[in-house]
């Protein structure tokens, strides 16, 4: 059996993240304290989500340029796994906020835009569910995928910069900034990001293979019957 190197890398990086992320020393900051370790698990979720949604977008564009069932399946499965990452990101963020801000949902601009970003993709799934014609479903959902992604750009990257927020790393970069990321944390943070992205890619690729196999089976059965 052939095992790709990146799968081993993914497992190693995630094991390293889990062990080092929980055991290594972290800087003591007021209020945040030990919860700063959420950086290794919460922030990579968003990196993973953005990566997976971008892959979904890329395959949607590919579909529009050259329609095929394969690219549609790719686009759909990346969006599915991306949504799972987004939900996990929101949940981990809520756990973190419960300890540092005092309540899980604080109405912070970043929480709100994250929730809206998830709503976009939920709408995408509803759109897919309500179209019965396969070809039409693939085409229209690809169009909506591209449209929603572009419409989210101001929401995720412009408006958060115009409003104040309590989220770490505010004022300029909405992710994180230099002071809560000292060099020791970087040693865990970057591997964690890579590890989680690889995991997302791995899950998505498995799902895609499964779907493609199902598609093939259907085709064979269809041939047999006809």
């Amino acid at each position, binding site marked *: 059996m052939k095992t790709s190197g990146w799968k081993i890398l993914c497992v190693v990086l995630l094991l390293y993240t889990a062990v080092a992320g929980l055991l290594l020393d972290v800087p003591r900051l007021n209020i945040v304290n030990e919860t700063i370790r959420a950086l290794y698990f919460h922030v990579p979720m968003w990196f993973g989500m953005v990566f997976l949604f971008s892959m979904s977008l890329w395959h949607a564009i590919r579909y529009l340029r050259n329609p095929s069932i394969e690219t549609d399946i790719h686009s759909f499965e990346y969006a599915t796994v991306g949504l799972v990452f987004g939900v996990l990101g929101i949940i981990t963020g809520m756990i973190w906020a419960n300890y540092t801000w005092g309540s899980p949902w604080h109405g912070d601009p970043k929480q709100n835009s994250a929730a809206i970003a998830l709503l976009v993709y939920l709408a995408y799934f509803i759109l897919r569910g309500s179209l019965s014609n396969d070809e039409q479903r693939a085409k229209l959902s690809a169009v*909506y995928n591209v449209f*929603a992604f572009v419409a989210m750009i101001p929401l995720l990257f412009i408006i958060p910069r115009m409003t104040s927020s309590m989220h770490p790393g505010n004022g300029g970069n909405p992710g994180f900034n230099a002071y809560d990321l000292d060099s020791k944390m970087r040693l865990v943070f970057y591997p964690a990001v890579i590890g989680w992205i690889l995991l997302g890619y791995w899950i998505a690729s498995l799902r895609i293979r499964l779907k493609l196999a199902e598609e093939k089976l259907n085709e064979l059965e269809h041939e047999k019957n006809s």
Partner: protein
Amino acid sequence: MNFILALLQKEFSLELKRKSVIAGLGLYLVSMVFIIYFSFALRQNLITPLVWSALFWITILFVAINTVAKSFIGEKRGLEIYFYSIASPLMILFSKMIYNFVLCLILSLTGYFLFILLLNNPVNDHLTFLLTLLLTSLGFATSLTLLSGIASKANNSNILMAVLSFPVVISVLLVAIKVTKNCMDDLDPSVSYRPLLTLLAIDALVSAVSFILFPFTWKN
């Protein structure tokens, strides 16, 4: 260009022919404002500027979604094929967008008038507020027209329209609410220039993407 004008003329004359649709939309708006008016009864003092702004934008949002939704959803199947044979999809989208923009603008101005009439008017900076109404109408028209085209292909198109449009128009609404608050607090108009410019940029972005994507929904 002449062709777009002809299409626009067709949209308007069709609209004037079936007056029930536009009258329905107007009545929808009036009913919504009336429900708000009744639910606050005579306790007008409860309508603080922030409540006013929330109610106003919710009303405008729902009216706009219903207005733009009918641009493709109401059309007959045969008509679509006819248009396909005589015009390019971009011309059709462009004429629909302009038409929806005018309609949204009229309805939001009417809504503003009704809010002043039945509730109160906490807006101090009228000029900036009217500019905001103009730009949000443009935003609604540009972003929702394409979605109406998508939703019209599905069975439960009316529900789908609301679900699909919410995430897309929310950035327009957020900026609009921000500017509305500036107008109510009587801040200097120059404070609102930046958000208004953002609104214009969003409009431009969304309409550019609509023009790129619309031909894909059209060919079938």
